[in-house]
């Protein structure tokens, strides 16, 4: 038995790899699956093109994994045309090292006539100079997490949510079990190894393994725009920077990101100032972007790790490697059978998992090769056409869908996209509360409802301008004047 800490891309990836090698596993996740960075990222299946100059190792990993995921996780990958566009001298200067890097990494690149790109993307900067097509794609994080989780449980693995590892036990310096605390209750899981895949929280787990590491966390903000103004992935050609990628996602398009040193695994409070800065960067690719209908902002924390070589250096953060590291704490003088997987990208989660489980196998002394690269993740059940009364109009979510999900309102959000559309819950949250009431009672349903309302507001507030501000003014009127949602408790 191997216990995996963390239910993000890395943790579920490791669990799936273990199961395919015949090793029983339990994932322990403190919140919900995808509650960490894997549910708060930009949604790009990297081709590696972004990294060919500054981080060629990462670039090579990305292109290899990109090809694999398109096959094994087809349901979660959306192929859309994807471009690098040079819009200024920065871009032109970068062009030749970039093309050399692309060649060296073996990433297919093709110049596309500008006229063709501009007619496909009318919002693009008319000063654009050259455009290149690359094999980036859209990665639907929540879909892939669902696939992984379904396949893990079908293979007999266990995913414990709302559970935390509080203690690691050892016998003679070797891992023997962990104590898990779930909703106030504690239990012991006996195991032969522990994998720390806690993402940005990994640094807080390591001391339990009798070791220390220094994380180099950074937060990135993204802005969501309604109406999928652009249906293509657009990268600004140049050294990786802020606000230089637009990724279409469902009915939206997402601009990202920023890169700001951050002290905690929890995402920071979103600031309007940062949103405006991001918007200004976005204007270099899309001059009219300030007039697009903004929906909300969100941010995630990069689980980067400073290895000794670049520790303390004043290197520009984006130049810090995006590559990953597997730590075998037994080899570092800590507890044997304890491992940490850290860094990397969503795109490379599978490779990271494979390398990690290779190390676990060496510890267990039973070598079985990884099969994740050749084993497609199967859909548990194909959801038929949605039927029944519509609860969320923006995203067309029906009552039957919500009942079938059998979870709380936040699960509805990540699985069915409930309350994620242009109205951000103005028209549908109270309906959700009524449905939840019959299951969890008045108090708990009201708490869920108010919590989701606050969660939506936190993302809307920093981008409350133009039509999005009007939408929120309507939400405020509805909350207080129509629904009296805070009851008699004042406002």
């Amino acid at each position, binding site marked *: 038995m191997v216990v995996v800490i963390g239910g993000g891309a890395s943790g579920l990836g490791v669990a799936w790899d273990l199961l395919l090698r015949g090793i029983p596993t339990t994932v322990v996740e403190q919140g919900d699956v995808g509650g960490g960075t894997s549910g708060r990222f930009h949604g790009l299946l990297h081709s590696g093109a972004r990294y060919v100059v500054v981080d060629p190792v990462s670039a090579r990993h990305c292109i290899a994994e990109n090809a694999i995921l398109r096959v094994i996780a087809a349901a979660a990958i959306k192929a859309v045309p994807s471009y690098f566009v040079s819009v200024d001298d920065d871009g032109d200067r970068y062009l030749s090292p970039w093309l050399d890097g692309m060649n060296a990494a073996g990433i297919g690149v093709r110049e596309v006539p500008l006229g063709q790109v501009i007619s496909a993307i009318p919002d693009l900067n008319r000063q654009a100079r050259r455009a290149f097509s690359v094999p980036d794609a859209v990665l639907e994080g929540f879909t892939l997490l669902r696939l992984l989780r379904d396949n893990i449980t079908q293979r007999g693995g266990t995913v414990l949510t709302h559970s935390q590892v509080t203690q690691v036990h050892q016998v003679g310096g070797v891992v023997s079990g962990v104590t898990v605390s779930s909703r106030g209750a504690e239990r012991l899981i006996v195991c032969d190894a522990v994998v720390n895949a806690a993402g940005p929280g990994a640094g807080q787990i390591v001391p339990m393994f009798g070791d220390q590491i220094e994380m180099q966390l950074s937060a990135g903000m993204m802005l969501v725009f309604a109406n999928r103004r652009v249906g293509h992935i657009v990268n600004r050609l140049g050294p990786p920077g802020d606000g230089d990628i637009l990724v279409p996602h469902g009915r939206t398009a997402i601009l990202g990101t920023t890169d700001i040193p951050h002290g905690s695994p929890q995402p920071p409070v979103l600031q*309007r100032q940062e*949103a*405006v800065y991001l*918007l200004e960067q976005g204007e270099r690719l899309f001059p009219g972007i*300030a007039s697009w209908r903004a929906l909300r902002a969100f941010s995630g924390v990069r689980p980067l790790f400073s290895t000794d070589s670049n520790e303390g250096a004043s290197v520009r953060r984006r130049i810090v490697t995006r590559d990953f590291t597997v730590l075998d704490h037994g080899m570092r003088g800590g507890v044997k059978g304890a491992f940490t997987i850290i860094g990397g990208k969503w795109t490379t989660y599978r490779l990271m998992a494979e390398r990690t489980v290779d190390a676990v196998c060496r510890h267990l002394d039973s070598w079985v090769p990884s099969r994740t690269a050749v084993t497609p993740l199967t859909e548990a059940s194909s959801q038929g056409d949605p039927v*029944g*009364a*519509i*609860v969320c109009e923006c995203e067309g979510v029906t*009552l039957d869908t919500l009942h079938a999900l059998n979870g709380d309102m936040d699960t509805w959000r990540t699985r069915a996209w409930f309350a994620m559309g242009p109205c951000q819950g103005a*028209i549908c949250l*109270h*309906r959700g*509360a*009524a*449905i939840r*009431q*019959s299951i969890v009672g*008045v*108090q708990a*349903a*009201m708490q869920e409802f108010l919590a989701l309302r606050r969660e939506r507001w936190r993302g809307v*507030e920093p*981008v*409350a*301008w*133009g039509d999005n*501000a*009007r939408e*929120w*003014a*309507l939400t*405020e*009127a*509805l*909350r*207080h*004047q*129509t*629904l*009296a*949602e805070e*009851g*008699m*408790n*004042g*406002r």
Partner: protein
Amino acid sequence: MGANTDVIVVGRGPAGLLMATLVVQHSGTVTIVADGQGTLPLWGGQWDFRNYADDGRPLVDPYQWWGDLLGGELAWRTRWSRVATLWHELGVLESPDIPNRNRWILSPLGHLRPTYLAPRWQWCQDQPGQFILIGFPGLADFSVQAMARVYEATSGVGVQAVHLPTPPGWRPHWTAINWAWYLDSRAGQEWLIGEVDRIIDASPTPLAFPQVLGVDGVEALRERLMQHLGRVVGEVALPPPSVGGLRITRRWERWLKHRGVQFVTGHVTGVTRDSAKLANGRQLSGSPVLASGGILGGGLYAEPAGNIRDPILGTIVGSLPQDRIGSVGHRQVRSTVPVIGRMVGGWDPDRHGDGGALTLWTVDEAFDAIWTGLGTTEAAPGVVRSQSLRVK
């Protein structure tokens, strides 16, 4: 050149319509120019006076709260009777007297909340009592079981919930508006009376319906239901588009048109003391009054950096996040061009429940200003009130 009227009202929301009403009642001529519908059809039509005290607790006696402010009780009673009289003329039946205190209405979540002046169709009580909630198939905004549970948990009074079956011709996508049109028809009314009679008991317990009892025929249907079932019948206002607001809007605009008010569809880009300029180049002459709404109505625009701009007057009136999105606005009503309704800041209809009073007072002020010539500049009531409260 375009129309030439005494007054040009920019905006078709409640403030704009009320302004136009005062002018025609004083035999003036009016043009209403607007680029959209305004917010009246987004709410049930109950006019709030002041629902909550500063600490957020519900208020029973709004007159006491207002005290001498903004003219005191006498001025307020005059203002409210103006609305009640107008409603009578529109055929919106109101309780005969202007209430002395706030009464309770039910929200679609099952919460009680205060309000002041409400049409008689509104389900309204003086204190929490018993009633039967009538559920309509497919109306996600009116979940009677959930509402009953919340009402019981918060008021301590138990209520019943019953469900109607689907009528012939019903479709799953029917919203409140579809139901209301259906219940304007003879067939719909017969179906409703028969079915309700069948599913409720014989007690005299009042019935609370969702606000769907017809668009134009609500008074007649409600009267028939009450006679046939021998009990009080009222409606709970639902989220937008709201049938109650739609009823009032239709009747009110018709009433104004019959009195010669011109309705122009257009986007105003600028005003002077005696004209308004439209985006299509057209120019209207007359004294403009801006009733172009707050951020929701489009009269105020939030810029990315947070500034709140009045695009017609070109002024910055506040900024986010320092100001609240629901209470930001101009600090005064009387200026070269008067501003009324939600354009005026310092009031907080969301938090305080004073949207109706905001409309009444600002329209009153602006009317004085343009009818008696431009007067002095006065601070918004938010400023007046907090100063006088501090003195107390």
